[in-house]
């Protein structure tokens, strides 16, 4: 299973990751959180073997969902999900049907990806990852474009997938969702892992990193 051991990365002369060590465990959902530009996506791409110097994992065992993944051609939802079988060299209907059902888009099977909503398209992209039936899921912002109810549904699904034995790594912006669903939260800042602990108790630390206090909403200014 893929892992990072004191991995450093420079892109275009700029240091992006500094001696990052991370070993996602099977049976646990790990959330990568941190401010914009902290290096969350770079850590995920390094785990997926997509940056120079990173070990390339076996595509049948490790599946990756890119941030803002989009289809260049107007495939149907089923065709998108079938792409997840490319590493296996088959188009087995079992895993494809299963992925469509689990992501709640079986009704959209024959719909074209450019004619459904952004949230539905996002779920189709996620179903493509499920169709691979990997041992490790690497997901960059899987709940972007989703409404709150759909976000919770997808994160519940990912937690259940982890508890069924897979290693799940998600980049999440919403720290409260990470604290609620992940078994382990890793906080990233300026290319370093600054905290790595079980989800309970990470909220205050994360809030400090994001420059706010937990539980304090935005203060309303009194109208003149």
């Amino acid at each position: 299973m893929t892992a990072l051991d004191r991995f450093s990365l420079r892109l275009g002369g700029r240091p992006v990751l500094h001696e990052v060590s991370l070993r996602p465990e099977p049976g646990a959902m790990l959330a990568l959180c941190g401010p914009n530009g902290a290096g969350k996506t770079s850590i995920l791409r390094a785990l997926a073997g997509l940056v120079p110097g990173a070990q390339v994992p076996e595509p049948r065992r490790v599946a990756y969902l890119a941030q803002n993944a989009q289809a260049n051609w107007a495939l149907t939802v089923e065709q998108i999900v079938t792409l997840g079988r490319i590493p296996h060299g088959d188009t087995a209907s079992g895993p494809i049907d299963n992925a469509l059902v689990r992501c709640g888009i079986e009704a959209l099977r024959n719909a074209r990806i450019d004619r459904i909503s952004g949230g539905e398209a996002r779920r189709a992209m996620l179903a493509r990852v499920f169709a691979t039936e990997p041992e490790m899921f690497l997901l960059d912002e899987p709940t972007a474009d989703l409404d709150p109810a759909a976000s919770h549904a997808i994160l519940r699904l990912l937690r259940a997938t982890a508890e069924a034995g897979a290693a799940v790594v998600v980049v999440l912006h919403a720290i409260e969702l990470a604290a609620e669903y992940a078994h382990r939260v890793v906080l990233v800042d300026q290319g370093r892992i600054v905290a790595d602990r079980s989800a309970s108790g990470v909220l205050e630390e994360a809030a400090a990193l994001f420059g706010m206090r937990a539980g304090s909403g935005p203060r309303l200014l009194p109208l003149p």
Partner: protein
Amino acid sequence: MTITLRLAFLLVLVAGISLLIGDGFVGPANALIVTQIRLPRTLLAVLIGGSLGLAGAVLQGALRNPLADPGLLGITPAASLGAMIAFYWGLASRFAPALPLGGLVGAGIGLSCLLGIGGRQLSGPSLILAGVALSALSGALMALGLTLAPNPFALAEITFWLLGGLEDRALSHVALAAPPILLGVALLLRLGPGLDALTLGEDTAASLGQPPARTLRRAAIGCALAAGASAAVAGGIGFVGLVVPHLLRPWLGQRPSALLLPSLLTGAILLTAADMLVRVAPLVLPVSAAPPLGVLTALLGAPFLVRIARRMTA
């Protein structure tokens, strides 16, 4: 599969009719005329049309760009330049196959330039830029060649050759072009999974075990073999590679791998049919000579492109 079978049947039919049509004369002919004149012409139309259609479908998938066609890579002008050099050195007058051989050498040099400029980590934009650079360079050298033409007859002959056509090609041309074309076609037909994976972007393709640089390199090599050999024997025949995948998408959907074999068959059908039109044109139109095939495909292809553009904006 049924559409593929129907296209294959149609291709056999069109190729059969093509054997019955001569230059300004329709009907069965002496066996010698059929085997020495009509057969090579029909075989070349099938081979070249098929390779251009397939190359167009592969390049549009690999570059994720609906405007891509074999001409974009600059292989066709490189092949034309090679043929022109062979022609100018007088090789072609002493040794007939020197012209297509020069074209093949030109396509080979063009491909090495393309892969050299594109670099080891070949990406879609770098391949397009390398192709544009190669096109511009070959085009400039060809223009230079035209201005330095040894005499007006040479200028007229090379210009006519550059327009593209299949008249007066012999079975020796088929023997010369078929091996690289078939090799290129075999390479391109195997790219389906790589092209499908690229639909979701280069990162996703790599994570699916289909590194984009590998897919692009194989697409470039296959297209150079297929389209380069085509240009070497038939000159520049445009629009087939660009138009064919667009014709098929409304029926077959947009999945790149689903378009490969149908694009090959449709390209072969269209070019064979266009070449039949070239032969019967003097019978039905008030023209003294047959229009060059490359001119005809451009004339027929341009309105199709306009229709595609209008459908895209609608």
